[in-house]
């Protein structure tokens, strides 16, 4: 009869990813770029929103994009049309991006020239929330047609973000979306979460968001 031995581990399964995320954070600090992770469900409006942000910030900042969309390179082509250095990740059937993919992608961007790197994460409200990418700003886009109850259904996603952008507010008259209910529900788990209602179509709310973003970037990169 063989002897049974119980080994105490207390090992965090996400440690490997966490260590790589720390390396990414350190790289961003050294190379002085602001890393911004944008998560949402498919079709919420990430690409449209990112393109609008790029148009508004282009004069002041040099921006790069890491494109994590599953299906094709359509989104990357739209970024490149704006003259923005873009890395398209080939992720096959994966449902999330992890820190190692970001580290690799960053090797293919001209980091010495960039102030901001935007990550368009894979459309999914579950898995992307589970992986720290080393971003200065983990954020989420929620579009009005998806409904105000999403914070109740995807609590992990809402708890890991620092900013929540509620997009497609031009559609509010068509839906029974309750902005107050959304605020109450997100603050149950994350009372620091900042909420920005915007429309990438009409531009409503974008000035406020851009002002916050510039302040955050300035603080992070010590530009002020």
């Amino acid at each position, binding site marked *: 009869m063989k002897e049974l031995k*119980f080994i105490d581990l207390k090992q965090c399964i996400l440690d490997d990813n966490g260590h790589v995320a720390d390396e990414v954070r350190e790289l961003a600090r050294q190379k002085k770029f602001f890393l911004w992770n944008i998560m949402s469900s498919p079709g919420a409006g990430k690409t449209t929103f990112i393109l609008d942000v790029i148009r508004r910030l282009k004069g002041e900042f040099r921006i790069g994009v890491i494109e994590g969309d599953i299906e094709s390179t359509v989104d990357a082509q739209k970024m490149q049309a704006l003259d923005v250095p873009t890395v398209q990740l080939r992720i096959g059937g994966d449902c999330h991006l992890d820190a190692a993919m970001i580290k690799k992608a960053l090797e293919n961007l001209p980091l010495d020239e960039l102030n901001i790197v935007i990550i368009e994460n894979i459309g999914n409200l579950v898995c992307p929330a589970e992986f720290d990418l080393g971003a200065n700003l983990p954020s989420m886009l929620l579009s009005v047609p998806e409904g105000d109850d999403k914070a109740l259904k995807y609590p992990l996603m809402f708890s890991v973000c620092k900013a929540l952008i509620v997009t497609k507010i031009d559609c509010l008259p068509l839906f029974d979306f309750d902005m107050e209910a959304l605020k109450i*529900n997100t603050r149950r*788990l994350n*009372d620091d979460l900042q909420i920005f209602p915007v429309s990438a179509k009409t531009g409503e709310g974008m000035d406020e968001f851009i002002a916050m973003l510039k302040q955050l970037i300035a603080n992070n990169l010590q530009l002020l």
Partner: protein
Amino acid sequence: MHELPFAKSIFHAVVTKAEANGATKVTRVVIEVGVLRDFVPEIVQKYWKYVTKGSMAEDSSIEMNEIPATVTCGDCQTVYEINVHDLVHTHCPQCGCQTGKMLTGRELRIVGIEIE
């Protein structure tokens, strides 16, 4: 579905640790998972069977202990447990307010392994 990559990471960590301890077989694995991870025990079992097939951990059991979600009240700092399946009715038992900061519920740890 989202449990699969974690089953692989757990497997990798378990085998590494078992080999380092001169084991020939892993018979039992205990993990701790925060409720916000939304891991379904039956699905964890299924993936565990799949990833351990043909390895030193084949036929080992995996036990999952759930860690409840708790928040610190944004107003009075009371720590209280929340029911993630009924967030709408969650409020601070001390002051009644509905804001909080996540304290526990996102854990993902291997507690220990049993080897031969």
